[in-house]
């Protein structure tokens, strides 16, 4: 069974990861590269650059008395040595595609594990519905509090944002699951409560806004990355569902 789950996840993740890499190359990546020109220029009117390092990432304090910070893309480690990073555009595309494929395999493993937990019948078409649930859990719900960030955006502390992001996805996933597979009204209400709760608590926000990237660019990036994520999840859902059905038919 593990072999069947993993082979489905690896093939589906590979397919979705490669296809979405092509889409990224023409949608989100150009916006990231463009935004980085603003991020690295430091031409913001109230940028008081103060070199400090955290986890090898250089950050610029906008005002020394606030917590709003812009994290710059170029990374120096604490001892001042340049950390490894892709050297040129081709290398960067390669590592982005590799990261997309690994993310695809990871999400596919989670999705196929959920197929198995549910015991439901799958097909390509049903897989699309599962994929859209994944899109809601891993893109829509976290984006409501933490919209996709273009480089050079102002943001709250990284660990706090990561914690909120993960907690929101878990709460939304469990909430959706019990609402779909639950059978009693109190269970539905519990599911709804779990989905709403992270947004009532609220995502960590910077104390000030006004990063280096122009707002038009930031808005364009949010739309592009959410739309591309939807495409990714539909491809991943269809491929996983179709492969899962196929491997079940072969085993019979």
């Amino acid at each position, binding site marked *: 069974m593990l072999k069947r789950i993993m082979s489905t996840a690896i093939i589906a993740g590979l397919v979705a990861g490669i296809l979405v890499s092509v889409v990224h190359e023409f949608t989100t990546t150009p916006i990231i590269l463009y935004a980085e020109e603003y991020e690295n220029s430091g031409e913001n009117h109230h940028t008081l650059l103060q070199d400090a390092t955290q986890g090898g*990432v250089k950050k610029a304090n906008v005002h020394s008395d606030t917590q709003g910070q812009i994290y710059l893309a170029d990374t120096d480690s604490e001892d001042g040595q340049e950390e490894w990073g892709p050297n040129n555009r081709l290398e960067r595309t390669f590592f982005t595609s590799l990261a997309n494929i690994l993310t695809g395999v990871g999400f596919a493993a*989670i999705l196929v594990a959920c197929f198995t937990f549910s015991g439901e019948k799958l097909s390509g078409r049903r897989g699309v519905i599962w994929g859209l649930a994944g899109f809601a859990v891993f893109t829509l719900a976290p984006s409501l509090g933490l919209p*996709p960030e273009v480089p050079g955006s102002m943001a709250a502390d990284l660990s706090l944002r990561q914690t909120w992001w993960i907690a929101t996805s878990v709460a939304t996933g469990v909430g959706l699951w019990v609402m779909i597979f639950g059978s009693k009204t109190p269970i539905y209400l519990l599911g709804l409560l779990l989905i709403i709760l992270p947004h009532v608590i609220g995502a960590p926000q910077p104390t000030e806004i006004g990063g280096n990237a122009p707002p038009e660019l930031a808005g364009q990036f949010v739309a592009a990355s959410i739309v591309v994520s939807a495409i990714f999840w539909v491809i991943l859902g269809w491929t996983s569902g179709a492969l899962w059905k196929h491997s079940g038919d072969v085993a019979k």
Partner: protein
Amino acid sequence: MNLSINSASSVVSQSRTNAVMAAAVAMMFGIFMVYGVGFAQSASLHNAAHDTRHSYAFPCH
């Protein structure tokens, strides 16, 4: 499925247990992969996966 048939119900429940165990392992593998690409606070991993992190709306920088 290499299960010998003792009684229909025990086979069904045993294969269900196996499936749930396998799914739990796959789930952990999936979380590990997504965490590594999207969340690990290593500068090299961050730099390699930078554009992916931004594009998937993982919190970055």
